[in-house]
Structure formats: C-alpha cells, structure tokens
C-alpha cells in the first residue's frame, strides 16, 4: 500500500542555475545518495572513497552501458554536510542537455526529485540551519511544496493522466485478484496465475516503455528537438533563423570533413534545445529565388519534431502557403505571421479555417517584435504547458519520467521474479511497487483503493 515517506529518502536536483554554464551540478542528498550515484558512476567505487573527496569518472546509462558524461563526483558524508546527510555532487559538463540526462538517470536509479527548497528544509530539520529561521523555512515549505505539487499535477496532460490511470487500473485488477486468492483461498474465484501476471506486467511494461520513448525528454534533450523553419521564399525564414542564432544562443558544431550542407545548428530557447534542420536549405532558398523550396521543405518537415511555418502577413495566402499548411497539419507546429510592420493583406478568416489561433504567433523581424512570444510558445510546447491536442501523449518533466523509470524497474523485477519461479504473492510486491510509482505521477495514492477494489470485484463470504 502506498506509504508517504517523504522525509528521509534520497532526493536529487540540478543545483546550478538553469541555462548554459561551464559546469552544472546534480546534487543528491539522503541515506542512499552515495549508493545511488555509484550505480551510475564508472570510476572509483564511491561507496569506498573517503569523505570530502572529489573523484574523476564517467556517468553510464545502466540500461545501454553508454557513456553519458565525463564528470567529477564529490562525496561528502554525514553528518558534516549541508543537509547533515550523505551528499554527492556530480559536476557535469555545462549544458542542459547532458545535465538533465544525468538527473534523469539519478532519478531512475532510485532518487526522488527534490521539492523546491527541500535541501534547505533538510538542513533545517537536521539542525544545521539556525532555528530562528524556522518561520521562514516554514513559509518556504508551504509556498513551494504546495505550488510544486500543484505544478506537478497541473503539468499532467489530460491524456497522460488518463493513460496512467488506466495502467494503474489494469494493475489494480491484477492485484485485487492476487489478494482475493490469498485472503479467500477456498473460494471459487479464478486463480491468478503467474502466466496471467506476466502478461499483465508485459503489457504495462510495454506501455510504460512507449511513454518513456515517445516522450523521452532525455532523448530530445540529448539530441535536441529537431526543428524545421519552413515557408516560401522571402517570408523571413532567414531573419528568423538569424534572430534565433543571436545572443550567443547558438551552438554551431562544425563536423569535420563535411560540407556546409550537413552543418547542424543548435539554439537554446528557454532551456529547450532546438536542432535546426536544414539551415543550409533556408539560406539557399533565400539566396536564389527558385522553386526548389517546397520539395526541400517537405523533406525537412518529415525530419522535424517541431515546425516553425513562416507566413508573410503582408501578402495574401498563396497556393504554396496552403500546401505547407496542409503538409504540417499533423506536426507540432507554430505558425509565424511575419511582417506585422507592413500593411496586412493576409485573409485572417481564411487562415483561421486552416490554423487554430493557438498556433499563431505574430512577429516582425524588422522591428524584432514577437520573438518573446515565440520563445514562450516553443517552451510551452516542449514542457507541456499548452499541449497540442492532436499530439501523442507526452511525458514532459523529469519527475514524471523518473517515476516512470522506477515503475519500469519494478515491472522488470516482476518479470525476473516470475522467471526465477517466485511465488505469486512475492512477485506481487514488485507489482504493487509499480502501481505506487505510477500513482505518484498522477498524485493518486489512496491507500484503501485496493481493498475497495477487492470487494467490488469479487463476491466474498466469511
């Protein structure tokens, strides 16, 4: 049954300010901080190193064995630490991409995402921070945990909630069946067999995997969100690109031995890394006023996770515009209505039939207006603020994917338990854990759910 034990488990968070810096730090605090970090750390055995040491090594993805980052890990042991608990600080190479991935792995390895202010709260609870600060700490807890909870739950896309609730219901039915066999052994209810349990576990595991994949923010963060800027010639794609590349936001990777055609350019929009697809193509079509645009755009669109479709608001829609609108219909899309500085000729009524208002952003590249709104829209799309209703279900934050990974680990234990011939009531321990983890994502943890299910599902006597 779900147990809220939030006090002493190991928590983790990125402790450096968001954005690009030379290094970023993922900090863990709690009883199993060192063991948790050690599961991912290739180098010295962190559980054996002395306190207050800094250790060179690599963070490895335990699933794939892949090296994620080259890091320095500081190990500080209780009680002489900030929180008076064991602390590990993993110094990663700067950049949200790698650091987020490390955080994800740490959460998958058993740590819980720290609530805002939680490190300080622990420092206080463990007597490290002056007691006179009590009231302010408490305000912090009230303000931040409630908001954090609210945000965490609000961030849940309706579809995701539905999906996870359904998965939990699937598990719950299995659990109730196992329970009824245990508590009412002599009744002619169907016996839940390990075969049935395996089928259910595999089914749920498959869905959890899909969720982790389709929405694997880690993957997107690692590779960048493939973004295509499309539009017919002279609508302002190039200016948009240049604006986005401004302000040192660009990370230009010159891959040796290649031509400018495969040059990849990244921009960081409010923490969302965008990998711009075919920037060369944008320049080319702008250079020569040729009709190679659509073909090239078509290709870019297929490669893209996000499409920025630029339209010229000072001209009526052309056939080419309409074709691009149709092509990007099922994509995650933002339609940029550029040239707001000129007299508006575009028929908004016609456009409204083709593109929902929520996808429209008005800009003027000349006056550099509307860029903020665009950045915000990109961030919202990625972090799920305004989820596109036709998009697939997406897990949008680290806490959720961390819990999903833990649920996945429990489901895998279910399967390995069955393989090892363990009796069903033991295997069920891991199944219950998976149910609990999924419940933490949606914020549902009603302890009496199982018992209620038991009695609604079965006819019992005695």
């Amino acid at each position, binding site marked *: 049954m779900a147990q*809220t*034990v939030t006090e*002493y488990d190991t928590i983790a968070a990125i402790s450096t300010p968001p954005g690009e810096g030379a290094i970023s730090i993922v900090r863990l605090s709690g009883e199993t901080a060192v063991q948790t970090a050690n599961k991912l750390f290739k180098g010295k055995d962190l559980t054996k190193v002395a306190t207050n040491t800094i250790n060179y090594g690599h963070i490895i993805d335990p699933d794939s064995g892949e090296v994620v980052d080259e890091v320095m890990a500081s190990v500080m042991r209780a009680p002489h630490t900030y929180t008076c608990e064991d602390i590990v600080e993993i110094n990663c190479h700067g950049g949200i991409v790698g650091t987020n991935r490390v955080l994800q792995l740490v959460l998958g390895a058993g740590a819980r995402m720290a609530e805002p202010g939680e490190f300080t709260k622990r420092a206080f609870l463990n007597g490290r921070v002056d007691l006179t600060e009590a009231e302010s700490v408490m305000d912090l807890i*009230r303000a931040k945990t409630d908001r954090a909870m609210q945000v965490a739950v609000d961030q849940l896309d309706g579809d995701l909630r539905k999906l996870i609730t359904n998965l939990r219901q699937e598990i719950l039915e299995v659990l109730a069946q196992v*329970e009824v066999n*245990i508590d009412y052994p002599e009744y002619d209810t169907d016996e839940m067999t390990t075969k049935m349990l395996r089928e259910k576990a595999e089914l749920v595991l498959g869905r959890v995997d899909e969720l982790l994949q389709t929405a694997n923010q880690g993957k997107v963060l690692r590779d960048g969100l493939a973004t295509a800027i499309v539009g017919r010639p002279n609508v302002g794609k190039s200016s948009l690109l240049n604006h986005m590349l401004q302000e040192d936001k660009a990370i230009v990777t010159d891959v040796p031995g290649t031509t400018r055609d495969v040059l990849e350019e990244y921009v960081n929009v409010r923490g969302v890394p965008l990998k711009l697809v075919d920037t060369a193509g944008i320049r080319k079509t702008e250079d020569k006023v040729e009709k190679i645009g659509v073909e090239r755009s078509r290709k870019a669109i297929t490669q893209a996770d996000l499409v920025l479709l630029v339209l010229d608001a000072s001209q009526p829609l052309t056939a080419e515009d309409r074709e691009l609108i149709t092509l990007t219909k099922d994509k995650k899309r933002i339609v940029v209505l550029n040239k707001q500085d000129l007299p508006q000729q575009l028929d908004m009524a016609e456009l409204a039939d083709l593109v929902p208002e929520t996808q429209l952003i008005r800009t003027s590249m000349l006056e550099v207006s509307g860029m903020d709104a665009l950045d915000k829209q990109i961030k919202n799309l990625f972090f799920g603020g305004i989820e596109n209703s036709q998009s697939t279900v997406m897990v949008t934050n680290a806490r959720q994917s961390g819990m999903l990974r833990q649920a996945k680990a429990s489901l895998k234990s279910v399967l390995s338990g069955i393989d090892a*011939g363990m009796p069903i009531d033991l295997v069920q321990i891991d199944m219950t854990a998976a149910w609990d983890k999924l419940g933490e994502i949606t914020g549902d943890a009603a302890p009496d759910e199982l018992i209620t299910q038991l009695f609604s599902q079965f006819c019992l006597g005695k």
Partner: protein
Amino acid sequence: MTADPKVREYEAGTYDVVVVGAGHAGCEAALAAARMGQKTLLITISLEMLAFMPCNPSVGGPAKGVVVREIDALGGEMGRNIDKTYVQMRMLNTGKGPAVRALRAQADKAAYHRSMKDTIEKEDNLDLRQGLVERLLVEDGTCVGVVAATGARYRAKSVVLTAGTSSRGKIIIGELMYSSGPNNSLPSIKLSEDLERQGFKLRRFKTGTPPRVDGNSIDFSQTEEQPGDTTPHAFSYETPDSVYLKDQMSCWMTYTNETTHTIIRANLDRAPMFSGVIKGVGPRYCPSIEDKVVRFADKPRHQLFLEPEGRDTEEYYVGDFSTSMPEEIQLKMLHSVAGLQHAELMRPGYAIEYDVIEPWQLTATMETKIVKNLFTAGQMNGTSGYEEAAGQGIMAGINAALRAQNKPGFTLKRSDAYIGVMIDDLVTKGTNEPYRLLTSRAEYRLILRHDNADLRLTEMGHELGLISDARYAKFQAKKAAIEDEIKRLETTRLKPSQVNDWLASINAAPLKDGVLASDFLRRPEVSYQDLMQFIPREMPLDHYVNEEVEISLKYAGYIEKEKQSIAKLERMEAKKIPDRIDYSAINGLATEARQKLTKIQPQTLAQASRISGVNPADVAILSVYVEQGRIAKVAPGA
C-alpha cells in the same frame, strides 16, 4: 445515578485491573493483566458466554491465523486454547509463497468455551464474576472503577471495556426485532448511555450470522468433503507435534443455485437489509447471502460450507449463508440447496445491530483519549472476528496492567505485527464498517509471516513478563539454531559433481561451477530437504527451524526490499509528536489537516502522514515544530 433507585450500591472489591466482558478480547485482556502480576477482575454478563463463538466455529485463516500466533508469542491464550479444542486443522495457501500461508482450525465451540473458562478460573490473581456493568466510576477525567447492576462497585487502577456486540444490541430476523446481545444473551443498554454521557462518539454497526441445521438431516452425499490436514500443525509455538489430532472432523461444501436466488429475490421486500429496517453499517467482506445475490446478480451460484459446531453436538453452521430473512424464508432458502433439502433448522440466522466506539478516540495503547485509565478492545472498537478481538484484548490488557503500575505503554508497529497494523489502522483512520484484517492491509506481509511471529514478538512477551524464562530459553535456542544453520549454508560449497545427477533426475539445469549451498537453495526447484541429501547434518533440525532457514535464504531479496522500506518508515515513527498539541496555533497547516490532526492527535509523524487529508506539506510543517521542540503551542489545560 444508579439504574434502579431501589438497588443500593456497595463496595465489592478493589483491583488493579477490571476487565468488562469475557469474550475473546476480554479473556486475553484479563489473562495478560493477571499474568503481569496485577490483581484482576473479569466481569461478564453470563459465564456461559465466556469465550463463546456466536458466529463461525473456526479460528485462524489468512492474516487472522498470523494474529493468533502473534498472541501466542506475546504469551496469550487463544493459540493454546484452540490447539486443545479443535476438531479440524488445515494449512491454507500452501501453493503460494511463505508470506501468506495461513493456519485455520475448526473449533469445538463448547470445548473452546470450557477450556478457556477453566484456564481463567485456575489463573492466580484473576477473579471471574457474572455481572452486568452499567456505568463507569470516573473522577477528574480518570476511570477508577465500574458499577454493576447489582450495585456492586468495583474499584480499579485501570479498566478495560470489551462489550462486543452486546452494547444496545438488537437482533433482527425478518420483521422480528428485539433487544438482545449475541445468541439471545442479555444486551448491555446502560453502559452505552454512560459512555455517551462521558463524551464518547458511538455509532451503529451491523453484522450477521447464518442458520444452524441438524447434521442428521443433511445429505452429505450431495456435498463435497473437506478433510483436515494429516501433517501436524499447531497455532501455539508450545504445542508439540505429538499431540496432533488424528481423528478430525470434516467440513462439507455445497452451493446455492438459481432456485435459492429466485426465493431471495422474490422476498427482498421482507429482507431487513433492503427494506430499510437495518440502519447499521455492515461489513463488505462478510455480506449476507441476500446481499451477495443482489450485488453479484450474474453469479449463478455461491459457495457454502457446512461446518460442525463441535463433537458433542449435531449442529452444523451453514457458512457463507448469513441472513436476516424471515425464518419462513430462511427455511425455503435452505431447502433449495443440494444436501439441505430436508435440513432441520435448529437456530435461524439473524442480523445484529450494536454500538461501537469510534476507534479514533483511542491512542495506540488502546487507552481512550476521553477518559484516562480506560481502555477498550474488540468488536466494541469496530472490528469483527474473534482473532481481531483477541489481538486487541491482549494489547489492552498489557497496557492496563502497565498503567496500573505507572509504567509506560506498550505498542506494536506496523512492521512488528498484524496486531500493530490493525490498531494503527483503527486509531489513525477509524473505520466506516466492521474492520477485518486482510493480508492486503499490511505493507510488509513478507516480514509479518505466521512462521516467524515468535521471532518477532517473543522477546517483547518475555520482557513484559508474559513469557516464562523456560519458554524464552527454548526460543533462544531455536533462534540460535536458525542463525547457525544459515551460516553453515552460506559457507558450504556444493560441487557440480555432487548435485548434477540429482538435478538431471528432476530435469533441472545442471551446475557449471561450484556454488554456495545458500545460493543453491535459491533455485526454485530446490528445497531445504533436497539440500540435506548433499550436506546432511548429524542431528536433523526440527521442521520449524528448517522452515525458517529455507524462507530466510530463498526469499532473501524480497525480504531485503521490505526491510529497506521499514527502515525508512521507522525513522518517521521515531519522530514523536508531543501530546495534545494545539494545532490551531500552528500557522501554515491546511484547514482540513488541522481538523484531522486535532481529531486524531497522532503520536508520531509517520502516523500523521497516514491520516487521509494530511498532505506532505502539512507533515513537513508539523515536523518543523517537532524538531524545534516548540511545545509552547500545547493546548492550555491539557
């Protein structure tokens, strides 16, 4: 204040502990208090009803069976008593894992009662008296005794109430309704009124029992036999295998059918459950047959068990046929069932409504928050089942005895025992229906096994003075034997040449390299007994030790997982909340949390976190106060 102004009160005796009610809770409470050296009185409405089983003639089963062993490990009586008086013993869930195996015995009801009465009569320090307690003696918010209907005034340092279903009990059979305790015994009316006067919140619960029929009129050939086990088992750790009963009685299984269901449906307007006559809340896990037929309309039949009520009686209990239909309909229903076509009804089934104390008015020691030195236990606290009652009874008895000696209370954690789970559930969450223990209520059921109840609790029982030194020495020897054997298996290597022939003979994968015996035992196809053919002991160990060694090694991974979660929980449990905090003075608590905390008055942060409506943020704020030791915010006059 007395019930009848003509009855004169008199001083009838002074005790350390007075226990009111001699059901399963009361008997354990009184024995525990007396055995802890306290001069104890057990007073009950009828001596004939002492340790009486008004419903099914059985003890144990999943979760409940573990409770019986826990009671035994704490030095209680239920296990020993059923071992002396059962007519059938069965181990349930043998096909499943070790966490959920459960022992159940069919009891000889009359023998069970006689044997318990005998034990109580022979116990030093314990007086047994028939009497109807009508009110409490309360001075300055502290209970100092009780007064019986005869005017007898008993003084006591602490009092345990275990009134069961007698409290304003009302029996209902169809249109018939009358004031009564279980099985037509005297109800207790005035005590309920007195409790309300003291400020207790009471509510109505309902339970029921099926008809009893004459065994001579049952055609057993139309039913399925369920014999007992031939392998010896016992509830008490003190009962030797040698006394295992060979000549056991069987139970018999039969089913309802469409005819039965048609009769029930046709007469629902006469069913008190449906006509609105019954107001009390009934248990979901023990529905009446009419309830089952209505709620699970698509089920073509329901299982019934015919259980003997004892050796010297022909009465059979028709298990799972609990009903409060009019007697006339009960007969028709019975006669529609295979094997019961000519059954003669001896006692009709009935529903009984009774008062319970809302259990959140208790602390974890079972003392009431409203009246000091007053403890309540058993069905009166909203539970159902003999085992649940007895488990609370022994805890209440222990704590009443400790209180009488001014010693600190004794509680069990959720990770210690099912008894701990039950009491924590009751005092933390209250209950909206008669509470039954289920294995699913326990978070750590792999730790709370029936085989290791002695390992979990004997030490505590000994410290309390309820386990004799001799028994304790025996227990320690067993514990040492388990540890030694585990160590032996963890240090003994097996070579492939030793075991591969045997593995081949059972079609199991051969070993490539040598392994530790403990690792070999983790293979699902290998049992401890199998292992002994390769690494025999000079002196084979007793089967309880073997069982323990096998479970500890075989399921070590899972046990470790549960132990880790327990360690987490225990640190929260260690954070005690000072008594009687004024929650209204703590800024930042959400309104619902404040109300719930004020009502429940949790004793630890962990308990607070289990209250529904208390969120992690509230627990965090509370923890700040606890850490800070800001007890200045204690309610004035507390």
